[in-house]
């Protein structure tokens, strides 16, 4: 075993049938490389679940403790905007799935198109999110020194009359809004990373990298993008919908 030898002799000849330039030398087969990649992606998503899990846990706790505050604060969020965003994001995920399909059937033009549509919808989502954030800013609903509790009134179950929250509970809406900003902010941050990656993938797709049978990056990015969608599908009901009605 002590004789010198070169890189070439280390790869047995029969492995050279692997045509793809993307095949890395330390994998025995292309199949192994692909499986390793997607397994790695799933594991990474698992870490993401644990990461978001910490915030969902905090949400659960404070929703229990400060139920009334969560009710009134939740009423400040706009269902139309949130719902529009949900539709947009599902659409974006849909185009992403089509993109994976286009890569698999080696249609370069379609792939580029779908990636661009995915990106556009992602940007639209962030735009609407920006509008919502701006509204919170104007209403002084950003937790901190300038936080304003005057708009928080208890929506009565049957809309008969509204009464202001107790001042103590009204302050707890800060916790709701903090969680709102932390969770949607972290989600938006993931989307921004995704959009940057989308630019890069679109550029490579345009160069023809993914239309010759090597589709792993598209598939794995697809997993990531769907994960980000799914996080929103939890955030939307938890923050916008379920606490609206007190009784």
């Amino acid at each position, binding site marked *: *075993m*002590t*004789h*010198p*030898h070169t*890189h070439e*002799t*280390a790869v*047995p000849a*029969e492995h050279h049938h692997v045509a793809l330039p993307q095949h*890395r*030398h*330390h*994998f*025995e087969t292309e199949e*192994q490389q692909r*499986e*390793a990649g997607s*397994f*790695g992606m799933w*594991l*990474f998503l*698992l*870490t*993401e679940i*644990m*990461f*978001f*899990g*910490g*915030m969902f*846990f*905090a949400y659960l*706790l*404070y929703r229990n*403790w*400060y139920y009334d505050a969560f009710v009134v604060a939740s009423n400040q969020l706009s269902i139309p905007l949130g719902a529009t965003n949900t539709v947009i994001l599902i659409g974006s995920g849909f185009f992403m799935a089509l993109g994976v399909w286009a890569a698999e059937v080696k249609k370069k033009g379609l792939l580029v198109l779908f990636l661009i549509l995915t990106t556009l919808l992602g940007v639209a989502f962030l735009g609407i999110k920006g509008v919502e954030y701006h509204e919170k800013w104007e209403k002084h609903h950003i*937790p*901190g*020194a300038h936080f304003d509790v005057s708009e928080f009134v208890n929506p009565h179950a049957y809309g008969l009359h509204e009464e202001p929250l107790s001042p103590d509970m009204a*302050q*707890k809406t*800060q*916790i709701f809004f*903090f*969680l709102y900003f*932390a969770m949607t902010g*972290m989600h938006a941050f993931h989307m921004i990373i995704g959009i940057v990656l989308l630019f890069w993938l679109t550029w490579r797709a345009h160069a023809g990298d993914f239309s010759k049978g090597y589709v792993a990056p598209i598939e794995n990015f697809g997993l990531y993008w769907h994960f980000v969608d799914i996080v929103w599908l939890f955030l939307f009901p938890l923050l916008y919908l379920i606490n609206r009605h007190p009784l």
Partner: protein
Amino acid sequence: MSATSTTILNLPDQSTATLPKKNYINNEHGLLSWLLTGDHKRIAILYLISITFFFFIGGAFAGLIRLELLTPQPDLVASDTYNKFFTMHGIIMIFLFLVPSVPATLGNFLIPIMLGAKDLAFPKINLLSWYLYMAGGTFTLAALVLGGVDTGWTFTTPLSTHYLNTHVITAATAIFIAGFSSIFTGLNFIVTIHRMRAPGMTWFRMPLFVWSNYAASILMVLGTPVLAIAIVLVALERTFGIGVFDPTKGGDPLLFQHLFWFYSHPAVYIMILPGMGVISEVISTFSRKRVFGYTAVAFSSVAIALFGFFVWEHHMFIMGVSNYSALVFSLLTMLVAVPSAIKIFNWAFTLQQGSITFETPMLYAFGFMGLFTIGGLTGVFLGSLGMDIHLTETYFIVAHFHFVMVGGMLMAFLAGIHFWWPKMTGRMYPESLSKLAAVITFIGFNLTFLPQFILGYLGMPRRYHAYPPEYQVLNVLSTAGATVLGVGYLLPMLYLAWSLKYGAIAGNNPWQATGLEWQIQSPPLTENFIEIPIVDHEAYDYEWLEHKTKHEVTTVG
């Protein structure tokens, strides 16, 4: 696919061994070839150098702590400086030394080889994890240079969020980044172990070192993100004054404790499991026997990883958690001792009737078995509710976790470094000097930390730099021990560096061990194997080896 079997038919003659002309070290030259490498073995070396650097910084702080505690009066430094000392010591030792210690160095180097693979599944992510580690280390040093942090390594809220004006955010950033380095290491290991095993390398033929790193990787992947989010929330709360953890604003400081310990208890198993893997390898090799109860030892690693996620509240018994939940967590804590005990018993049975030799790694392994047992058993004391109320936040805790982390993991790390040094460098360490160092470490360790059990039992609280004069004798003993321990750590630094140039040539298999890593040249080729091996024997097949070597002769791919 190659037809070469890895069966060991002839052990090479050590006396005629020469250094191989081509290997992973001289394959490419120049600093850049190291900084941009994808080779798991080179990345392991990068990690080894960096964690050694941080170990010595962390150690310097330990020295300062012990120096201050030599006398009852607060004479060396002011109290807030002292707080900064033990915080830096803790942060560096835990996040920059112990967590990456065995996995990122020995694990990185050995896991692909032990599985018969050419590299980890994701070499670039492996390199990225080292850069993240270095970035985390840099932020830690920045926090230190800018004036320090004094939260303790536990970042307790609302202390860390509201009451301190030290560099909490810088240190938090450091830990956040370093956390991702360990996530990526764990992720890489898991994928590699699932997908890169050589033909014939079934799950139950894997060396136990791989099993224990697999278990630790599960913890890294599932636990670390929770620490990350806890730290993000601390940073947000500190920057914007929001109030998730601040009771005056309706926040719950216990929430932070839950999130923090949900990671940090499993983290102690991240720190010890890979060390247990080292011990399995060493004990089997130097008693020339298969590890007794291989399957039990393998599964106990996974059991530790699973149970490890359900005991975190034992760090919070005095923090006002519900009595009923404390009761449940107390019971669960006892459970986690079971798989640890399984390992100790199985190692003991491996030794029984073995042909034991006392090379340096074996001495450290014996040290591990004794000290980890004491550390683990005192952990059971602390897991019992009544005892814990009395002992928590005293030096008893300090002694407990140093027995596990330093007496356990550090011993295992040194055992592993000595054991695989010939493989990593191609040269032997000086045997008698290193035996001396092992003995010095053992003596120094006990002298340092045994008195702390008594101090804690008598009621000396941790994290104070002054104490009543009646505690002085024990503290002087402890400081004296720390000095001895320091010598025990400096020695290997020196003679291992020396051996790089002057050590005897090791040859492929100086220990005549059965693991795949010993069947290739030392230091290995960049590709590890000329041809991917086909594995047709169990791990630690020493009995079989003994019969075989008499007859046949073959070299091994």
